[in-house]
């Protein structure tokens, strides 16, 4: 079989987690954890588990990219390690750093014990010899401060590593990720290569597409695009998150959101905003959509004054349409 060269074959999947038995099972489990998704998303998780490849998730903001990683962690009962990316993120914050303070103390301690170590040494050469024999732990695991990426590799039973908004980071950081993503190992110059423990982490990367991710990174990942869901799926999502909402209101508000997404807006309302809105309406004891109540709560779903102004005159029509639609 191809791919012998890959370091991945070194990891034997001794037993498959019962959850990952089939795509349908993954989907069902995700739904049990209140993450309603399409087959495509379930397939992605299934493949990521079996091929041990990172998933790069793209899509408009608020469609549940980060949520998927969180739910997967919950589902597989693994710890979630999260790394939020931002401009200027570097290896000292993402990978590891030396505990400089402790190293400083160590050198001071060393200085005090130096006399004992060197006691009776004749000449410079012998002193240096003794110093070498003393053993140097200045650069050793003890003084290593593990940051999220290294922490994820050291996790004994595997974990879910979420690298959030990777498009916000710099190009250099992306290159830093390559080694981890393809071989689940990092090289620390002073120590050597640190490999993942028995089970490598399941890695999720999310991107809002503010810039193109490099080909090298994409090549190492499965690529999942999550679009806005269709009406039926979104209704199920709202139902899963807020089961107490009346059916009629749920149908109407989801249709209304879908009408909004058709318009030319600066920022279309996302799923998370649909859910917020549903909560709001529930709180206001609304049992169906009416223009007045929509007008009062529109700022929950639209986040730009410009958008609110352009939608305002349309509210009555859109509400009517959402109520009437079959």
């Amino acid at each position, binding site marked *: *079989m*191809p*791919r012998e060269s890959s370091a991945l074959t070194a990891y034997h999947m001794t037993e498959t987690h019962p959850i990952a038995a089939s*795509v349908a099972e993954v989907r069902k489990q995700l739904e049990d954890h209140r993450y309603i998704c399409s*087959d*495509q998303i379930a*397939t*992605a998780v299934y*493949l990521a588990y*079996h*091929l041990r*490849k990172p*998933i*790069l998730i*793209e899509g408009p903001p608020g469609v549940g990219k980060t949520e998927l990683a969180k739910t997967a962690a919950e589902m597989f009962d693994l710890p979630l390690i999260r790394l939020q990316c931002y401009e200027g993120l570097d290896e*000292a914050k993402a990978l590891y750093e*030396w505990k*400089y*303070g402790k*190293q*400083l103390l160590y050198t001071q301690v060393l200085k005090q014990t130096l006399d004992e170590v060197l006691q009776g040494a004749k000449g410079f050469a012998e002193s240096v010899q003794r110093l070498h024999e003393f053993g140097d732990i200045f650069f050793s695991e003890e003084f290593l401060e593990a940051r999220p990426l290294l922490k994820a590799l050291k996790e004994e039973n595997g974990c879910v590593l979420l690298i959030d908004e990777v498009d916000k980071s*710099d*190009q250099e950081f992306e290159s830093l990720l390559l080694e981890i993503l393809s071989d689940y190992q990092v090289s620390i110059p002073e120590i050597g290569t640190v490999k993942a423990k028995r089970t490598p982490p399941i890695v999720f990367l999310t991107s809002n597409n503010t*810039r*193109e991710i490099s*080909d090298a990174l*994409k*090549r*190492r*990942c*499965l*690529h*999942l*695009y999550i679009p806005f869901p269709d009406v039926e799926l979104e209704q199920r999502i709202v139902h899963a998150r807020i089961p107490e909402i009346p059916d009629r209101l749920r149908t109407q508000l989801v249709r209304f959101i879908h009408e909004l997404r058709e318009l030319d807006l600066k920022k279309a309302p996302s799923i998370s905003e649909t859910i917020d809105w549903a909560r709001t309406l529930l709180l206001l004891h609304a049992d169906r959509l009416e223009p007045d109540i929509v007008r009062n709560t529109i700022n929950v779903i639209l986040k730009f004054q410009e958008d609110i102004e352009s939608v305002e005159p349309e509210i009555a029509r859109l509400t009517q349409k959402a109520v009437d639609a079959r």
Partner: protein
Amino acid sequence: MHRVLTNFIQALRNADVRISTAETLDALRTAELVGYADKALLKSSLSLVLPKTLDDKAIFDTCFDQFFAARENKPIEAFDAEGTQGSQGNANEEGPKQGSGTGAGGRAHGTEESTITEQQPSAAVANTPPDPSSASSPLGQMLLRGNRVEIGVEINNAGRQVGIERIEIFTQKGVYSRRILEAMGLLDLQSEISELEASADPTDRRRGHELGRRRDWLREEVRAYVEQQFLLHADVAGRRVRDDLLRTVRLSALDQRHRRHVEDLVRRMARRLIANHSHRRRTFKRGQLHVPRTLRRNMKYDDAIFDLHWKSEKVARPKVFAICDVSGSVSEYARFMLTFLYSLEEVLPKVRAFAFSSHLGEVTESFEDNPLERAIALALAEHGGGATDYGQAFVTFAALCLDDVDRRSTVILLGDARNNNGDLQLDVLKKIYERCGRLIWLNPEPRSMWNTGDSEMRHVSVYCHQVEECSTLAHLERFVAHLVRTHR
């Protein structure tokens, strides 16, 4: 099955989806994991592994359907000229199956299906089930046996033998069809048919006629096969040839009907540049310690310096002022340069465009409000058509926005510098030159034509940082790539 998958990947690559070898291996592993039985699952799995952008995913979807539908059709459909005559029940069974098969198959199969069914009644009237052994040539025997699967396999084999995957442009379709037929033994069949038809015996003549009919059907079949292979393997190779040509042809010599292709090409070039340059860079001045920051960051270690910080600089995006001559002779070049610059919006967010012939005007706003094509058409309509006056253009430009031009701006002048012997106002150009970071003059004429007649290149080039010939897309691409690179 591995071959199928690698073939599919080849087809994807032909459709301009970039797939690396590593990804091919991933695809194989994925297919092994999910199996080939469930097509929907296979498709959604592969769509996670192979295409890595949204555009690619769309291409992948159509390509997958096309490819696997085509493959499925062949074995299922049996050539049922025999079947209908043999047993009615069998034919009935076949009916719906074929219907669904054709539905997924696409047009090529649909048409040939109908020709066969049309011809069937005549075969039934003749009421002579042709005996395969009556034909002497192997191809004739096979045709008379009429097993469609067998014929399909033969066509495939012959196709491979003549190297159908190397087909490049559509004019080669005929050649490849003929080669495949010949490889299958058409010549023998041909001579057999003419022999039979010349025979005195009416049964022989009828047999010859029947063979001829089946030969024509085979021809259709082969043509459809070549057509399909062409779509899979070649359309793109042909396009590559065309693209290469278009890149090097002079833009003014461009045919109207190629314009769409060129615009498409420009967009693709721009996309590539964006992919390469979209991240903002810092240049690190390695070796120059940022002393204050280093001291500040190391205070927590009792001023022992562990953590070094180097001087770095965020590279600013350039401001681009594009001044385009849109008079008759140069307007075509202006069109493509503006298309190019505005396709690069992600990398060059601050482009201001000016158009002039006799008078200069800013067209930036029109580009912001309208789609690209329309904005360009508007600019050409509004400012084109006059006699070129560079002097006036410099003066108006200076009056409009000399204050906005600074060290970080690049001024691009596109024009042939033919000023109809008017006043050039060189002192104004000099002012612009001194103020801006770079002033680049792009001349669509070949260098040998510069300084001939009323061309003023010699005079204007004194006040330019760079003068370039820019008559083909290749020139334009090189220039723009340079522009983006020096500024990132």
